[in-house]
């Protein structure tokens, strides 16, 4: 049987901090994989067991991580993408990073893609010493096309004339490049 490639991903958010426990994050990755490729038998069994023994409560973090480890075995590549890692609580972040490390250890086909603000850089590098890092900032082209789109979707186009338009197109990119 050919092995598949899968992508899972989630967004961290300041406003869902409590709900976004590491356990729930791993759970949602499993949920995405299961929705896509079917629920693995081991997951169904874990569910039945939890229903009987735990009154249907969810698993602890390690239980989730173990299930993910089993699931990745059937994939040739798994991409895990997590946006705004800085927005989850420091504790959840630490747990998350450590659990990701555990997955990577057993699954060389897994790739992890993270985004976050610069202040968590140290934490990431401490845990993954050979992390590949890319500093992001919008390119001149990104800024220009964004400005054009915004000007074109102006709800009151009469308020705009060519002079103002070209001034906006010149000044804003200039200001951004100075910061």
């Amino acid at each position, binding site marked *: 049987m050919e092995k598949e490639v899968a992508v899972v991903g989630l967004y961290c958010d300041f406003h869902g901090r409590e709900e976004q426990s590491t356990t729930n994050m791993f*759970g949602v990755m499993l949920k995405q994989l299961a929705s896509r490729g079917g629920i693995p038998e081991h997951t169904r069994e874990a569910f039945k067991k939890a229903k009987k023994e735990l009154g249907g409560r969810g698993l602890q973090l390690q239980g989730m991580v173990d299930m993910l480890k089993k699931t990745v075995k059937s994939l040739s590549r798994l991409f895990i*993408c997590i946006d705004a890692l800085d927005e989850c609580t420091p504790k959840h972040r630490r747990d998350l990073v450590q659990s990701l490390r555990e997955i990577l250890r057993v699954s060389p086909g897994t790739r992890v893609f993270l985004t976050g603000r610069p202040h968590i850089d140290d934490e990431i590098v401490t845990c993954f010493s050979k992390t590949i890092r890319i500093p992001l900032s919008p390119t001149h082209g990104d800024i220009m096309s964004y400005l054009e789109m915004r000007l074109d979707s102006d709800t009151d186009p009469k308020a705009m004339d060519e002079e103002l338009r070209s001034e906006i197109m010149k000044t804003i990119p200039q200001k951004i490049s100075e910061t």
Partner: protein
Amino acid sequence: MSAQNQQDTGNLGSTSNDFSNNTGSNNIYGSHNKNILSGNNNTWSNNENSFNNSIFNFPAETDDEGLQVLQWLSPLEPQKRHHSVGTDRLDGVGNWVLETEEFRKWRDAEDGSVEHVLFCYGNPGVGKTYVRYEELESKIAPMWLTIGK
């Protein structure tokens, strides 16, 4: 939503929800929410049970127990945020990241010379969320599905 966070999601996103006038051949963010990968190539749709919908459009499970299992796994619903990022996103923004040496190394390296972790960092508003979206859906996955087999 905090002001800071709003800035984070707003700066490089569009305010319009309708990209139908902008749709290039590679634009996978059509307002009609079609198969997100069908515009790119057909690899995914050859794959029987899986990619008729976005990975975020779950659940595909329909039996009662299946739905219960999914619910039991996690209460989180990232597909909601994912959908709004998709509709707010300006096509092409941040694509330069995909051309970088770092990105390719992360995607391709097999020998353990680099960590299999890629960290894109930047201050609020630079477009981190939007870069990632592009990669997630249009670049990485079809590529690996083709090469990885």
